Every structure is written in structure tokens, then in C-alpha cells.
């Protein structure tokens, strides 16, 4: 049986190709001039440049944190290029002007930017290295008053909205990587759903790192006004390289009264080879503010890629009766390391949070769940339920759980449950004697283990996630 897990775990990374496009890339290094250069290239207003500079100056005073349960060689922040844009992307009034090589890249990744194809009915904002290259279905969305565009465009066309919400959930001083991102972020997506509008289709951003020697620092801002609803998807891939590339993104979500934002991620950055060479460092700050009465923010993530994943999509439950959810599947294989989880901060009355985390460790991977549930003194009637399960496949991997539960209100009910166990040998045996191969058996057990999370994903994503999981775990059955 170990041979099958072995092959299961070791399938090749499929998205590891490089696209050959001419790029406008800043030389490596970081100083105020680089920040100014990025801002100038994006033709940004003064207030944004000032904000970036404030962030940069703050970043200089901060130290890279080392508390997560991950290990990596020191990052040389001066060796990274902070801006890389494909040359043709400068103006992109229509898709025809997008470099065909880039369109090709996305279609190879299975994402159609061609609206005629009407595939899946999902509006996509495609971010290639540092810039957004195309956003589909803009017109149709505009009819509903929905703004869905690249961050750069939003700064030009809706500066008042950007200025109002930028940094309001993740301030530039929040942490080391958020400060770095605030100083040098290049692009990303911006979403605004007006009052009472239910977004008619899924919105999606697809992030692709292509150029070498660069980092990707994008910023996503989603604002759901009163009574609005939006479901947002995020996907990511990168070429196979021997170097480690840094991805330090920031995602901010604001949900006002009765608004609901559902944010799903399938993260499949290149994870490095079996010896741990190369791969993406995925150090991301994601946070939502459920500000309004009965607002709801739901995070779903499937983390299969990256050499190191370090992120905690969180919800600040400010509004009374607001809800926060976190559903996560994190898989590590090879020498991947993941330290991921969530923070639920209960501030309003009768706030609810639900956390379901499923960790799968295979190969020599190390997977840590780190979560905080905080109930502040005013959060009367707060309710939290946390379930985090880990599965170990193979005997050289590790699974860790670090929940922090802080309760300051006695009307709160907080429950935390965690378990760690080996993939069931008797389950595999049973399935095999029913005629399934070991590989199928493992895949079936794993999808059963992750079912509670997958059912939260939009359908296309659920299928993709399931396949990804199969690929990531390939060769791990022992």
C-alpha cells in the first residue's frame, strides 16, 4: 500500500510552466524611490503615495516575526523585485489588446478570459505578476451598479471608495508583511456591491506569478454595502523555480448591515520540489470586518500549494448578531509547511462564529492549525464552535494544533474540539475488499474527511479542490 501512497503523493505540479512575455520590471531592491516609482507607474494620487510611504517607514521599524511553527532561510528583501508588469498590459480597453501569450497562460490554467465562451458564468479579474491584465463581465456587472475591477482602476475611477475603506480593516501598521504590502502593493481586485444588490454571478480573481526574482504583493478590497451579497473566489498558481518567491497579499473585507460576503480560495502556488527547493512563501493577511447588524463573512480555503503557508483569515464580529465562518482544508506534502487558521473576534452582541479546519499532513510536511477565538466583555451571548481535525499520512509528517481561546463574557458559549489520527487502515482495508484500489480508497477517505469544507465551496471550485487534493496527496499512501 505504501507504494500507492508514494505515487499518489508525488504527482508533478501541473501549473509549473513559464510564460515568455516581455516585462516592465523594477530592479531588485526596496527603498522610498521604489515605492515612489510604483506609485508613479500607477499614476496614483498623492494621498495614496503618502499612505504607501507611511507604511514603508513603519515597515522599516518592524521586525520580521518568527513565532509561527515554520522554518525558512532568511528572506533578503533587497533581492526582490517589487514590480513586474507584462509590457502590453498598459492599456487594455478590450481583451484583444491583452498579450495573446497571457491569454494562452490563463487558458492553459483552465481559466477562460474570453467572455464569448460564457464559461461558468464567473467574472474573472486576472492578475499576472504585479498587474491585473483583464477583468471579464465588467459591463454586465455595471448594470447592477457593481464595481469589479483591478485595484489600479479603482484608484483612478472610484478614489473616494478606495480612500474610505483602504486600510480600514488591515491598517498598514498591522504586521510586518501587511506593512510591506501596503508600501509596495501593485495591483489586485476591488469589489463594491451597492445597497441591496445580490451579485448575480461569482466574482473571481486569478493570481499568477510568472516573472522570476519578483514577489507578488496584491491587495484585494471587497465592500458589501447594506443588504448586499457576493461570493468571491480566488485561485493562484506559479511556475516551478528553484528560488523561493514571496507572496505577501492583503485582503480586506467590509460587510455592512445585513450584507454577506463569501470568500473562497483555492491556493495552489508552486510548493517546491520533494527536497524542499523552491516554492512560494505565502505570507498573507486576510481579514474581514462584519461591521453591520446581521452581517456575515465566510472564509473557505483549500490550501494545497506553497512551500510555506502562513495565513489566518479572520473576522472581526463588530455588528450585533453578525456571523463569521472559517472552513479550511490544508494539505502539506513533500517538505511543505503550513501554519494557518483563523481569528474570530467577538465584539457585538449575539455574534456567532463557526470554525471547521481539516489538516492533512503527508510526506515530510508540517501542518499547524493556529486559531484564536476572542470574546470581549461586551459580546453578550457570543457563540463559537470550533472543530479541527488532523490526518496523518505517512510517518515523517507532523500535525500541530495551537488554539487560543480568550473569553471575557460569561454568557458566551465556546466549544473547541480537535483530533489527530492516522488515516484509518481498517477503512482502507474495507474499501479495498470492496474492489477499490488503495489510491481510490485514500482519495475517498480524504474527501470524506474534508466534506464539511468542500460543501461550502461553489461547485466548480469544489470539483477543482477535490482534484487538487488528489494530486497533492498523490504518492502518499503507504
Amino acid at each position, binding site marked *: 500500500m505504501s507504494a500507492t501512497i508514494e505515487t499518489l503523493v508525488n504527482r508533478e505540479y501541473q501549473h509549473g510552466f513559464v510564460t515568455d512575455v516581455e516585462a516592465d520590471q523594477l530592479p531588485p531592491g526596496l527603498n522610498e524611490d521604489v515605492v515612489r516609482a510604483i506609485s508613479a507607474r500607477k499614476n496614483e494620487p498623492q494621498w495614496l503615495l503618502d499612505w504607501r510611504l507611511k507604511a514603508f517607514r513603519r515597515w522599516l521599524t518592524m521586525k520580521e516575526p518568527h513565532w509561527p*511553527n515554520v522554518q525558512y532561510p532568511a528572506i533578503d528583501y533587497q533581492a526582490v523585485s517589487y514590480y513586474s508588469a507584462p509590457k502590453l498590459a498598459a492599456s487594455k480597453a478590450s481583451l484583444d489588446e491583452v498579450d495573446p501569450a497571457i491569454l494562452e497562460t490563463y487558458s492553459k490554467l483552465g481559466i477562460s478570459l474570453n467572455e464569448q465562451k460564457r464559461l461558468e458564468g464567473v467574472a474573472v479579474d486576472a492578475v499576472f505578476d504585479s498587474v491585473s491584465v483583464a477583468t471579464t463581465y465588467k459591463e454586465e456587472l455595471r448594470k447592477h451598479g457593481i464595481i469589479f475591477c483591478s485595484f489600479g482602476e479603482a484608484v483612478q475611477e472610484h478614489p473616494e471608495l478606495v480612500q474610505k475603506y483602504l486600510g480600514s480593516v488591515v491598517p498598514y501598521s498591522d504586521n510586518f508583511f501587511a506593512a510591506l504590502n501596503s508600501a509596495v502593493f501593485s495591483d489586485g481586485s476591488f469589489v463594491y456591491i451597492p445597497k441591496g444588490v445580490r451579485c448575480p454571478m461569482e466574482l473571481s480573481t486569478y493570481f499568477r506569478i510568472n516573472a522570476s526574482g519578483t514577489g507578488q504583493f496584491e491587495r484585494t478590497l471587497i465592500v458589501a454595502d447594506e443588504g448586499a451579497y457576493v461570493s468571491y473566489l480566488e485561485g493562484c498558481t506559479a511556475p516551478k523555480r528553484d528560488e523561493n518567491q514571496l507572496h505577501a497579499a492583503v485582503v480586506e473585507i467590509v460587510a455592512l448591515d445585513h450584507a454577506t460576503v463569501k470568500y473562497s480560495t483555492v491556493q495552489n502556488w508552486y510548493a517546491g520540489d520533494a527536497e524542499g527547493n523552491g516554492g512560494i512563501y505565502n505570507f498573507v493577511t486576510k481579514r474581514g470586518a462584519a461591521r453591520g447588524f446581521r452581517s456575515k463573512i465566510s472564509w473557505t480555503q483549500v490550501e494545497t500549494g506553497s512551500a510555506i503557508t502562513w495565513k489566518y483569515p479572520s473576522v472581526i464580529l463588530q455588528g450585533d448578531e453578525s456571523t463569521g465562518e472559517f472552513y479550511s482544508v490544508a494539505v502539506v506534502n513533500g517538505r511543505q509547511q503550513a501554519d494557518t487558521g483563523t481569528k474570530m473576534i467577538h465584539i457585538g452582541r449575539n455574534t456567532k462564529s463557526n470554525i471547521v479546519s481539516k489538516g492533512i499532513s503527508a510526506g515530510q510536511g508540517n501542518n499547524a492549525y493556529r486559531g484564536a477565538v476572542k470574546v470581549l466583555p461586551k459580546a453578550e451571548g457570543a457563540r463559537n464552535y470550533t472543530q479541527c481535525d488532523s490526518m*496523518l499520512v505517512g510517518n515523517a509528517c*507532523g500535525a500541530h*494544533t495551537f488554539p487560543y481561546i480568550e473569553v471575557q463574557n*460569561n454568557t458566551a*458559549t465556546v466549544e473547541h474540539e*480537535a483530533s*489527530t*489520527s492516522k488515516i484509518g487502515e481498517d477503512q482502507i482495508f474495507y474499501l479495498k475488499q470492496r474492489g477499490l484500489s488503495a489510491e481510490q480508497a485514500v482519495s475517498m477517505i480524504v474527501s470524506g474527511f474534508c466534506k464539511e469544507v468542500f460543501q461550502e465551496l461553489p461547485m466548480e471550485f469544489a470539483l477543482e479542490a477535490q482534484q487538487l487534493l488528489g494530486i497533492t496527496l498523490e504518492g502518499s499512501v503507504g
Partner: protein
Amino acid sequence: MITETQQSLAQAVVARAQADAAAAPGQSIPLPASYAAELDAQVAAAEANGPRWLADLRRAGAAAARAQGFPTTRHEDWHYTTTAAIAEAAFPSLASASGAVTEGDLSDFTFGHAEWPTAVFVNGRFDAARSTLARLPEGVRVRPLAEALREEPEMLERVLGKVATPEAQPFVALNQGLFVDGLLLVVQKEMEADVPVHVLHVTDATGARGATHPRVAIVAERHSKVTVIESHVGLGDAAYLANPVTEVDVADGATVHHVLVQRQSARAFHVAHVEARQGRDSHFVSFSFAVGGQLSRTNVYTLLGGEGCGATLNGLYLLDGAQHCDHQTRIEHAQPNTYSRELYKGILDGQSHGVFNGKVYVRPVAQKTDGKQTNNTLLLSEQAQIDTKPQLEIFADDVKCTHGATVGRLDQTALFYMKSRGLTDETARKLLTYAFAADALETIEIEAVKDSLEALTLARYTT
């Protein structure tokens, strides 16, 4: 098979955590000068008179205490408990047994069994008059530490500082540099003690604004069995620091039951460290009961170092007023086929602050580990606060580990049911509160101790 890389990764993680703990700024307050002076004096005394190993032990303790200072909340192991108040008070070690402690003073703390072999320490020094060590069970040998240091230092050399080490433990380091008395307890191989041994640490009014650093070493030789009760009590309402360290060596096939009863004065600081090292097929059963002190921290650690051994660590803390009570447990599964069971419960009233941090480590070799940990907290008042952090770190695959934590108030449906049966709201609340606590107390196997602590709890919540 465990790959070397996995081993080295596990080690590297630990090493980095220690390095981080040492290097990160703001994690500690410098050691107060008076403690530094006390440490120097003990090193000098040991160098002048003591055996060489003692001088080495003192030096290592002093160096570690200096290097670590007093931890603040920036120190991950002390995330919810600051020791600034203890550092600020900088209570000096009590010079000698003072006090006029009478038998009557102690009757409250003997579980109705004054005839049990009892070693009484008053303000940190052995009090022969109050102790009753004449009728020790067969095979059990006890000796006050100060006496053992004079009479059998070679025995102590093999025992002291071997289980509890000062690395990454600021208060163990301080204790190692400063202990002057305590107890050595040895159970001979294959002997089963039929009555418990009670170690009663008392601080009375004359111990106000002083500190004690008692050290207790328990050695259970192979296939022996013993029960040790350690009580830390305060008479009156003095402020003082108690910094006891207990080392327990549980050899192959041995069983040690250890009950910790913390009933310090309401203004006391209490920082206790109990650490066990277990051999093959051994058992360590610990219970920590805490009701006293304004600021208390109790570490209960065990290393499951032999195949087939196991540990049960249970505890109950009942807090009120502005008390702060922190428990940290660490169970390290280092060999295959080991088990651990853990149940800690807390009842928090007033503006009290409870902290629970339960760590379970499973090393790569420790296949077939079976671990279960539970922490339940009942919040009785609006201002009570709990921080709980159950923690699993697993490096082996064929394991079964679970943990659970709950925080809440009394079950409203149970309350409703009882009221519908004619009980008053008040009675129903009291009964449910007591029942919550009794759940943990029931796991104590020594009847008299269980009954006595149950009575104490019942009185607390029903009168």
C-alpha cells in the same frame, strides 16, 4: 521509520523556540538585584562548604535565572500571566523557621488523617515538632533536604536537578539557585506504600513579605507504588512568594500518585513546578487543586520516557475576587505505546482570571500514542475571564490524540429542569456548580482527600 530530517526538524523547532524565547525583546523583566545577590551568596556558600556538584548546580541555576529574568506576557509560555508584580515585590528568602504554628493551625489541612506520615515545613524550613514521620510505610524513606545535603550528598547528587532543569523555566532556575530545604522521598523497589505521605508547606504571618523556594525530590524505584500529597497553605492573609519545585522520578513499572493542594493566602504569589520523568510501564497520576493566592501559576510536566507508560493529569481551580490562576501542563510522549489523560476544570467567579495551557508533544518514535485532553470552564460572573490554549504537537503518524475545550455559563436547560422540579433558582445553581466541580474531584483515588476536597467545594458553593 523516522527520518533523520524529521528528528532534526523536531529538534530545530524546539531549539528555535528556545532561542526566540531568549532573544525576543520585552519577554522578560531583568532579575531584581536582591535576587541576584541572594543567588551569588548561595553560589559562594556552596563553593566554600558544599560538595562540588552543589556549587555547579547553584551556578547553573543562578546563570539561568539571570539570563531569563522574570517572564512577561510577551513570553509565549507566559502569554496570559505577567510576573511583574512578583518581580516588583522581590520578596527575600525567609531566613529561618519562625512562627508558632500549632497542631490546631494545621488540623484544617490534614484531610482528617493527622496520623498519616506528614512532613511539615514552616516558612520553608522543616519543622520536626509538627511533623510525624515515625510511622512511615515499609520501604519508604524520607529525609528533610537540608539534612540530606549534610548526611547523604552523594544521593542528592544523583537526584537534584535531574528531572526539572532550569532551561526555559525562570522559576525553576530561581529555585535551583536558592532552595535551602525540602524533602527527599525514596520508595524502595517493589514496595507499595499503603498510606499516603503528606508534605505540608505552611507560610504563616511571620512569613509575610518573604519567599520560600522548597525543593522536593520523589524517587520511586522500579515496581514501587506511592502516594504523595503536597499541600501549600497560608495561615492568615500575608503576602509572600512560594516557589516550590517537585521532581518525580518514576522508574520502570512504578506508580506515583501526586496530589497538589494549593490553599495559599489570598494575597500570596504561588509559582509551582512539578515535573516527572517516567520509565517503562510506569504511571504518574497527578491532581492539582487550586483555590488560593492572588497570582498563581502551576506547571505540571511529565516525560513519558518508557514504552507502555502513561500519565493522568487532572485538576480543578476555583477562583473568585481578583485572583489570577494559571495552569500549564506538558505531556511529552517520547516512546511508543504511551497514553495520557487530562481533565482540567475551572469555576471562575468575581473578576477572576483563569488560564489553562495544555501541551501534548508526540515525538516521531512515539507511535501508538493515545492522548486525550479536556478543559472545561464555568464562568459564574460577568467579569470573570478565561484564556485557554490546549495544544497538540504531533510528529508521529500512528496516533490518536484529541483535545476539547469548552467555556460557558451554567446550562440553562438543566437549570430550567431543576426549577421545574421545585428547586429554587439559587439551589439549582449551587447544585449544578458543585456537580461541575465534583466531576473532576471524583477522579482522585485517595478517598479521604477526595472527600475532604469535595466537602470544601460543597461548602464553598452551597453556604
